[in-house]
């Protein structure tokens, strides 16, 4: 019987297989950041162990780093200690580090791909659940806990329980104005935050094949929000073109050998998935979340759902609690929800294409009065590219703040946070209670919706801008 893409990559990394035991898998690339690594390095030190493969390991600083005044000492002493701990650990164990201020610094999941380190058919891990991002290249990439970080540092392997396979086939073509973010939010709403549990998802079909690498990363990034072990997309010409010429992409004969191997990384025609989901791309429209988990979303054209409409008791209760936390009422049109803050950035939507699409909407327009908009590039390289294209000027001219690279407002670990009760439209990946700051309320959106929302002050898509005055609800 044929094998799926995920099974092929898995099989190629089995170091040891024994009946009744998890497979021991070799890890090709280990990404580190300051938050989930200190206890792992401590463990190594206590056991007198070394990092087995420093040449397959790389670290950057992203979660704690400020996005303003980066040349000054970090104000929060606890954050500063964590960053200093990473620097000390990397120096002691010989790990390559791109600290704040370095030209290769940025969100770890933006840095790996742009350096060309993320390649098809590799296994990629990081103590960070959004490691699923790298699956966009046909890598088997997943987030791990700190104990596993220590395990990979010490052995370059992980014992892993078997997984199930799920195909999500996206038929047809995404309509104009509908992005990868809308697609993945719609997928999560469809299968639920636990729908992918135990599965490696392979996204396939014509709508996926047409996506750029950066859009594919947006899709795979949020696989974890559906509970999946990983998300993958088969590598193709788009993947190879993205990689060719990057710092760590293979060169010369190695390139040819690599491409020959990468071309084998497709699910066989006779392979069978454990589960299959089919999505009709043509039926999709801009999608946003209304609740406190990424599965609580709806088309922007819809209204806040009525919890009573849920048959499942625990879903009903979850919806009730979500509406209470979010300060929303059932039946309220999503377009009438006003926001205080708009955040464009994160490992989900902090790449150059995301910034270009937001800038295209803001060009010649202004951020609505009373709305704060933060634009945070995913890495220093993304920032430099944006500046070279003049995007930073577009953002600042519109009244948005142009910041330094980092995780920023995706999570409340650095100075960029929502105040209690504040509401955001955010291109990040999680709308959990308090995720963007204690008491903050988050609506997950695409960069296009974020930009249009910033202009109008309420959740909106670019299509709403042409008749902006008519579309503005009373009281905004």
């Amino acid at each position: 019987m044929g094998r799926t893409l995920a099974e092929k990559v898995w099989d190629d990394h089995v170091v040891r297989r024994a009946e009744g035991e998890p497979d021991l898998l070799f890890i090709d690339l280990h990404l580190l950041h300051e938050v989930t690594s200190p206890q792992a390095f401590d463990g190594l030190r206590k056991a007198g162990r070394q990092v087995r493969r420093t040449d397959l390991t790389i670290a950057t600083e992203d979660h704690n780093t400020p996005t303003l005044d980066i040349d000054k000492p970090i104000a929060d002493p606890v954050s500063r200690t964590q960053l200093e701990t990473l620097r000390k650990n990397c120096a002691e164990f010989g790990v390559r580090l791109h600290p704040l201020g370095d030209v290769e610094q940025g969100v770890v999941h933006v840095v790996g791909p742009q350096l060309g380190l993320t390649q098809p058919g590799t296994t990629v891990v990081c103590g960070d659940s959004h490691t699923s991002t790298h699956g966009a290249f046909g890598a088997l990439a997943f987030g791990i806990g700190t104990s596993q970080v220590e395990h990979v540092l010490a052995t370059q392997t992980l014992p892993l329980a078997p997984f199930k396979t799920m195909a999500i086939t996206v038929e047809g073509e995404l309509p104009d104005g509908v992005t990868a973010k809308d697609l993945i939010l719609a997928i999560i709403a469809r299968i639920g935050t636990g729908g992918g549990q135990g599965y490696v998802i392979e996204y396939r079909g014509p709508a996926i094949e047409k996506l750029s690498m950066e859009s594919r990363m947006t899709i795979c990034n949020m696989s974890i929000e559906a509970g999946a072990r990983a998300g993958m997309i088969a590598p193709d010409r788009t993947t190879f073109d993205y990689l060719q010429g990057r710092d760590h992409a293979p060169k010369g004969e190695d390139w040819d050998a690599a491409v020959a191997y990468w071309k084998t990384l497709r699910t066989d025609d006779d392979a069978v998935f454990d589960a299959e989901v089919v999505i009709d791309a043509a039926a999709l429209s801009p999608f946003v979340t209304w609740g406190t988990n990424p599965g609580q979303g709806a088309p922007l054209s819809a209204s806040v759902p009525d919890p009573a409409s849920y048959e499942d008791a625990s879903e009903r209760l979850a919806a009730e609690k979500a509406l209470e936390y979010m300060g929303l009422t059932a039946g309220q049109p999503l377009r009438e929800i006003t926001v205080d803050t708009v955040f464009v950035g994160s490992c989900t939507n902090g790449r150059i294409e995301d910034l270009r699409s937001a800038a295209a909407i803001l060009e010649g327009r202004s951020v609505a009065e009373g709305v704060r908009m933060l634009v945070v590039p995913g890495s220093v390289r993304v920032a430099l590219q944006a500046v070279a294209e003049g995007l930073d000027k577009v953002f600042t001219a519109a009244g948005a703040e142009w910041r330094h690279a980092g995780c920023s407002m995706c999570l409340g670990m650095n100075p960029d946070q929502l105040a209690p009760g504040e509401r955001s439209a955010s291109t990040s990946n999680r709308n959990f209670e308090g995720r963007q700051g204690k008491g903050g309320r988050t609506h997950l959106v695409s960069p296009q919706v974020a930009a249009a929302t910033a202009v109008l002050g309420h959740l909106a898509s670019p299509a709403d801008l042409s008749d902006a005055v008519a579309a503005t609800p009373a009281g905004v």
Partner: protein
Amino acid sequence: MEAFTTHTGRAVPLRRSNVDTDQIIPAHWLKKVTRDGFEDGLFEAWRKDPEFVLNQAAYKGATVLVAGPDFGTGSSREHAVWALQNYGFKAVISSRFADIFRGNSLKNGLLTVVLPQETVDRLQKLAEADPTAEVTVDLVGRQVRAEGITVDFELDENARWRLLEGLDDISLTLREESAIAEYEANRPGFKPRTIEV
């Protein structure tokens, strides 16, 4: 890792689904560089509410958390497991756990037990009706027992063995040194490297 064989303690009913790891331990706590001292961060936002179940005197000292479905979703932070353990929990029962959280828990000796939702409901009702009721989580016999409830649970044999023995995964893997070295010797030359060594 501390071994887990069997544990008996009082239970806390947490009637929420999709309890993500940001709720278990908010991000600002993750700045710490140790594995301890997270107990005050556990469910920090919810604990501001005096009515929250952990704030009720009757549940003080309880050691078994009986949670709604999809417990531990979201971030991979192992700090969520440490926070539960630092607070005093020995076991968590739910009808479904997020994969990464589950893996993390079993690597730290926090036993996560999957039971049918109907049984979880019964345990929650029991703990609500009688906060002094004891629940036994028996890994040797793979069984959860409480008044009027006896239910078997599954856990793969390898994970169970590691927990029962309190084995350190890294030491076990290092026994495979020759297999790892052989794999490394045969890796294709085009695979990426972060540095030249």
